[in-house]
């Protein structure tokens, strides 16, 4: 009986194009959009070469120290790309936004920029640095300490930054979460067919001598299979085409995918049994729950997840989308497994609660009204 039901549930699910669109195609399409939109964000956050102009007047010409320093900065450190020009052209370049700012040496350095901003600030810091180094040199020269090489005297800084700081990964993790939870549409759809009070086919099956538990199990296995196949395709696509990094622990990644799908499945079953509405409304509710969950776990802006984690942690502790997202985050960014396992346990607990809540409705065979 289980096999009979499994086979036909599979046929039913695979024939429904709308269901397949939402569970198979939509996450992949969204993934492509993410990739197109976000692939440059992180590199554009790194400091670019700043384009500036320096007014090539007499004072600048005399200032050997600054001249040398700017030459270093542009040719060796590649912080600036410098145009040496006259004031009129510099003004024109600034107006056309071709340069961040220009420097005029007139009783010290004068910087002219269009606005306050990060490139402008860097420009100012560097100019200040040169001035203060110049001051130091003059000072030490006066005192007869002329052999000192400034560039060799440095603080002792050690960078202990963690790797895997690519925060756009969160976007893809929420995508996996969305896909896993959208799987609930499949289980909801197939569960509806088993409920005599929701569906005519359900009535027909419940007057048959087939045991309800076996029927349901067969159907849910079919929906789980379809769901897991969909999720695997998404994994393969994101890993090989979009180069998403899920950390290095493949077995745990698979485990999280499987348990995340289970959470989606149980959510779908719960919506099917607990909510009194027609199928379209139920699909709407399921999509709304999923999208809200993904919103809170950072799909529409990753800071949302951080803010919720920090200020209302409880909200994200009960949000299955976040449990999945956070699980991948833990695999990607954390060394220990505690945080990851915590998410796995939460997902299992969530699934269990959903299934327990649905249990009464599922077991039920006699109704007060149909």
């Amino acid at each position, binding site marked *: 009986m289980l096999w009979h039901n499994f086979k036909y549930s599979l046929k039913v699910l695979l024939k429904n194009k*709308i269901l397949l669109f939402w569970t198979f195609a*939509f996450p992949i*399409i*969204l993934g492509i*959009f*993410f990739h*197109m*939109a*976000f*692939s*440059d*964000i*992180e590199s*554009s956050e*790194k*400091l670019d070469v700043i384009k500036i102009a320096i007014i090539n007047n007499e004072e600048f010409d005399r200032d050997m120290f600054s001249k040398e320093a700017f030459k270093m900065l542009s040719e060796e450190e590649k912080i600036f790309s410098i145009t040496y020009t006259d004031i009129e052209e510099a*003004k024109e370049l600034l107006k056309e936004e071709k340069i961040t700012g220009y420097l005029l040496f007139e009783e*010290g350095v*004068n*910087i*002219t*920029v*269009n*606005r*306050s901003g*990060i490139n*402008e*600030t*860097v420009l*100012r*810091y560097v100019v200040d*640095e040169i*001035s*203060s180094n110049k001051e*130091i040199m003059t000072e*030490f020269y006066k*005192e007869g*300490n002329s052999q*000192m090489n400034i560039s060799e*005297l*440095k*603080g*002792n*800084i*050690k*960078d*202990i*930054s*963690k790797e895997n*700081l690519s*925060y756009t990964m969160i976007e893809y993790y929420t995508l996996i979460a969305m896909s896993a939870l959208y799987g609930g549409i499949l289980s909801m759809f197939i569960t509806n067919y088993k409920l005599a009070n929701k569906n005519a086919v359900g009535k027909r099956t419940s007057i048959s001598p087939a045991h309800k538990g076996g029927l349901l199990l067969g159907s849910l296995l079919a929906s789980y299979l379809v769901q897991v196949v969909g999720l695997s395709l998404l994994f393969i696509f994101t890993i090989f085409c979009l180069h998403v990094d899920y950390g290095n622990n493949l077995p745990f990644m698979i485990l999280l995918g499987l348990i995340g799908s289970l959470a989606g499945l149980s959510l779908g079953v719960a919506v099917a049994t607990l909510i009194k509405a027609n199928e379209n409304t139920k699909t*709407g509710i399921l999509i*709304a729950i999923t999208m809200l969950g993904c919103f809170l776990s950072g799909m*529409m*802006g*990753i*800071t949302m997840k*951080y803010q919720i984690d920090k200020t209302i942690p409880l909200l994200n502790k009960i949000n299955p989308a976040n449990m999945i997202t956070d699980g991948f985050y833990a695999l990607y*960014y954390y060394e220990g497994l505690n*945080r990851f396992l915590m998410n796995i346990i939460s997902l299992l607990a969530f699934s269990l609660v959903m299934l327990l809540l649905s249990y009464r409705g599922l077991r039920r065979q006699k109704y007060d009204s149909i």
Partner: protein
Amino acid sequence: MIVFKTFWNVVKKYKGTVILYTVLLLVFGFLNMSTKDTQTDFVNSRPDIFIINKDKDGLLTKNLISYLGENSNRKEIKEEEDSINDALFYRDINFVIYIPEDYSKEVMEGSNPEIEIKSTGDYQASLASRMLERYLQIQTIYKKKETDEENLIEAINHNLKTSAKVEIASSLDTTKTTNSSRYFNFASYSIMAVVIFVVCLVMSSFKEKNTKKRIIISSMNYKEHNRKLLLASFVYSSIAWLLFILLGAILLKDILFTTRGLIYMLNAYLFTFCSLTIALLISTLITDKNAVSGIVNVIALGSSFLCGAFVPSEWLPKGVLQIAHALPAYWYINSNDLLKTIEVINRESLKPILINSLVLIIFSVLYIILNNIISKYKQKIG
């Protein structure tokens, strides 16, 4: 009248969706309102940093911290590695500095103790790193000369005081225009979703076999009926546009009541109209009502992601922007982005915006022509 009534009934039935996209726009608009005051003086950008200080009593350390405090935002987060790591990952802070125990003492004793840092590697972090490097360099240099802690501090601070004069050439306050451009850019998503979703659903329910038969046999002229339906869609789209403008007026206030604001609104109207023509084309193409939701999501999300409605277009890869040229949203968003930086509004500065508008109109006309061709073709075979 009956056509209008039916139209509104369908709108009423799907009001949840309309509300959803409106709320999304509102939340986005609200979260993006930066409340900075008008800037005419130069203000340094300040990276967000976090300092873990194990050398509480050191005078040198105190001076370092006060220097960093003046030039960056010191964030308060939990002093746990997990919280720090999370904060770095989500860019709540850009830079973490660990000052070891007895730092000041060891510096005064002539050694160069190690300071550990964690960085996000973005430009804010580079700035913070530059800041720290400069300070430590000056400290190391003066340590060669000064042996007294207080003298050393004074020498450092004296040197750090050097600061160049900065002038701001542009007179335009871009904070407000940035806000409104962002709002209108995001609105492209809401407009597309709301217009395409509802118009497609209305059209397809009028087109459903039985309804269509009933309409054809009803006393109303079929062409007349179609014209009314188009008019109703047009009125609906205009109302949706008005709704988003009103919300914009609440969020953005006075900027909308300027010439610039007027151009923002006109641009949005052109885009709304273009979305309507897309909606009509799609409704001619599709046969299954259940497919509407999927199509709307793909089209609206796609054009928003590719054209810079969510992510500012200057951050998008060049290749993506090339593709985006084929979508109306790109030209609409481009106009909004231009409006952000135009200083004086005159014939010359408006020229690129006029060109963008023209492209939007061409797109609309193209969709209308396509729609006519396809529906004629469909009538023949259907």
